């Protein structure tokens, strides 16, 4: 048992003695707790107050304010200062009498004009969906075919369609973007990636001399697409800035003929139970039901041809290859659907003239190619004609572009400069560019 031992306490006054006993007990308690170096649970200290056992800051018990209709609460509001017996007044919430943009609370979702009962799942430029390409295929009701269509690839094999010194000029373009475009040692990815893309597009554009219809195209950046569709009782939307779009005056011809299109009716879409297809999509109750290509009526280049995606340094925008391909499919589909709805109307139908949109994504070295053919806008049921997606993934343009050679154990393993150039990738790039013009 713990005893309070008082050494040398001599006092005649009872008040002082009590205080001294209290102090002694308190210090003894503190000494004990200090020596044990832990909580003093298991020991009862009757001579010290319970405040010493407080584990945290004193908790303020919020008193419930009971509103009895007949009785009025007598508060100290009139007195303008606290009075012990009276209740705490409740003042009306203060409203700033001028609009301060830094302290503005917007209306609740329910009060917004565009509030709807059914939620909409939105895919925007930052969405990284969990299941990647499989989920994108389900959402767009598409069938995947590995590899690009042969008749497109054959366009680049034709020597008439090739650029003079094609390989050499492409390698110069790579060297320009990777080595020469900076005063520092090496340029960053968000600099060399768009520079490479522009250089390659410029190279492709030099063929305008031979094929004049190549000039009937224009590049557009920073445009926003909007496409809406219903898929199995859920509403989906594709919205936002996507990438650089190559628009053309004439539409792309259908890649797959009607036989192949009708054969897709037998294909079953892949599901991924237990994950729902709406995972990672932004669920919102306030949305505008609109289909917008991003360009006004009367725009001289109405048909979307190819969508280009580049990688940036922004950490929110870093995509893994699987998610990047899913984004390519979704935005190509969004552009195609918006165009189809503007041509053929909102009514869900199987399209007589399918809309074809291509998409190319690069991070400066790896290229992903996608060709999407929109065969139907009837996306509600799972059965019926499906859309088609041809995909060629992870195509290397070159192996290494080193500013400094890689030396392991005094042996140069990778030399400085461009090494491991693969001409096939640029041929595919050129083929997709020429598709529709040749």
């Amino acid at each position: 048992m713990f005893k309070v031992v008082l050494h040398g306490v001599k006092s005649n006054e009872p008040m002082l003695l009590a205080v001294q006993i209290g102090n002694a007990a308190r210090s003894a308690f503190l000494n004990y707790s200090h020596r044990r170096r832990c909580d003093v649970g298991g020991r009862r200290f009757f001579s010290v107050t319970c405040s010493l056992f407080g584990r945290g800051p004193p908790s303020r018990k919020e008193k419930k304010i009971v509103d009895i209709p007949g009785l009025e609460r007598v508060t100290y509001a009139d007195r303008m200062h606290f009075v012990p017996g009276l209740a705490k007044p409740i003042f009306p919430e203060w409203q700033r009498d001028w609009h301060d943009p830094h302290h503005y609370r917007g209306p609740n979702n329910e009060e917004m004009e565009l509030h709807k009962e059914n939620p909409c799942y939105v895919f925007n430029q930052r969405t990284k969906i969990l299941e990647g390409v499989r989920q994108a295929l389900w959402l767009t009701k598409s069938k995947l075919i590995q590899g690009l269509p042969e008749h497109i690839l054959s366009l680049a094999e034709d020597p008439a369609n090739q650029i003079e010194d094609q390989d050499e000029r492409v390698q110069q373009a790579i060297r320009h973007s990777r080595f020469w475009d900076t005063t520092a040692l090496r340029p960053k990815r968000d600099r060399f990636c768009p520079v490479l893309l522009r250089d390659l597009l410029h190279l492709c554009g030099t063929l305008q001399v031979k094929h004049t219809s190549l000039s009937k195209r224009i590049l557009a950046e920073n445009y926003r697409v909007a496409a809406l569709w219903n898929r199995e009782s859920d509403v989906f939307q594709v919205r936002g800035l996507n990438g650089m779009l190559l628009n053309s005056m004439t539409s792309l011809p259908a890649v797959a003929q009607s036989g192949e299109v009708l054969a897709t009716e037998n294909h079953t879409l892949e599901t991924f139970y237990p994950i729902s297809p709406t995972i990672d999509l932004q669920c919102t109750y306030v949305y505008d039901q609109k289909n917008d290509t991003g360009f006004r009526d009367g725009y001289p280049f109405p048909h979307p041809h190819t969508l280009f995606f580049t990688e940036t340094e922004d950490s929110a925008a870093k995509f893994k290859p699987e998610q990047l391909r899913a984004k390519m499919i979704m935005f190509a589909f969004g552009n195609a659907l918006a165009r189809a709805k503007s041509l053929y109307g909102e009514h869900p139908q199987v399209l007589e003239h399918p809309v074809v949109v291509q998409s190319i994504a690069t991070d400066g070295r790896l290229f992903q190619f996608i060709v999407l053919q929109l065969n139907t806008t009837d996306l509600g049921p799972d059965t019926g004609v499906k859309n088609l997606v041809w995909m060629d993934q992870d195509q290397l343009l070159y192996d290494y572009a080193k500013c400094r050679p890689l030396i392991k154990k005094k042996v140069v393993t990778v030399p400085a400069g461009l090494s491991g150039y693969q001409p096939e990738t640029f041929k595919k790039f050129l083929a997709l560019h020429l598709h529709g013009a040749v």
Partner: protein
Amino acid sequence: MQNPGHKLSNTIHRERGWRRHQRASRLVCCAVKLCACETVTSESVKGVMALSALARALGSLSLSASSNVAQRVRPAPLLSQTVKQATELCRYSSLPCSRLLLTVRKTSFCFGTQLQPWRGILTSAALCQNSTRWKQRTKYTIRPIGKKKTGGRDHTGKIRTHGIGGGHKQRYRMVDFQRLHFEAGKESEFFEEKVIEVRYDPCRSADIALVAGGSRKRWIIATENMQVGDVIKTSRTIGRMAVSANEGDSYPLGALPIGSLFNNLEIYPGKGAQYVRAAGTCGVLLRKVNGTAIVQLPSKRQIQVLETCMATVGRVSNVDHNKRIIGKAGRNRWLGIRPSSGLWQRKGGWAGRKIKPIPPMKSYVNLPSAAAAAGTTS
């Protein structure tokens, strides 16, 4: 009219910390009220009284830099305001200002064993190093959250637990311990989830797994053989027959067969797992007694819980956690463990290994007592 401040300031000296400051600031408010007092007609008298009251108030304030006072200096702007008001008043009085200020200084010096000559009033913001706002987040997210280290210090700033401090920075991942957590509006008898990722968690000894089901993802404690791509089931039905449970699945205790190993045990249904969460641990289901289940925890203690409490089948991941060798003092420091005091201390009865019998079975079930049952029937 006796200066109310005089009596109050004497009592303030004996008080400590924030309470003293509070009373001092109340005194200052009295000084301000004095200025606004309508019964005193003469402006000069008002000014003098206000200033003397203010001086006494300032004399009672200890301007040492203690963290307690610094944190509760909310009336600091009020203080500067009252000084301003008092000086304004003295401008209108007949007495010269400088003389008044001198008297203020004198009085402050008389009372001012605590008050340094015009050190000034703390007007900075409160210290936010020990704020706990990082853990006030209510909305669930799988994104890791920045975590503040306490160093073993409590809300007063003193060390409450020794040997904690430093170590690698850690981010907290919100783990969902309530395994039977339905998605909003999708209640059912059971649901399945797929394991996306199993990774190390710096905040605990066990590994955590990112599982996705329906339209949501969440972190849970991973079991021993959980791999990426596994499908795990969570069910709340208790059938007549015990379920043949796979590792990683979660069932109520009443549905599990006797002798099965489990982890992440709830002791109150719906509260979330509180027991058997450490690396490599598992409990054993001993028997099931009309509506309750008796289980053995890893410490060999037996407890009785309702059979509707959820538990996950299998052992917790990271089984070899107790076999790891720290190897050097530095590794302990990386884990945030500071060295213990080197002072040799005489050990008393509390030290040394204790071999005690296992405490009796603890029941977390409020069974109706026999007397209550007799009362209702009669």
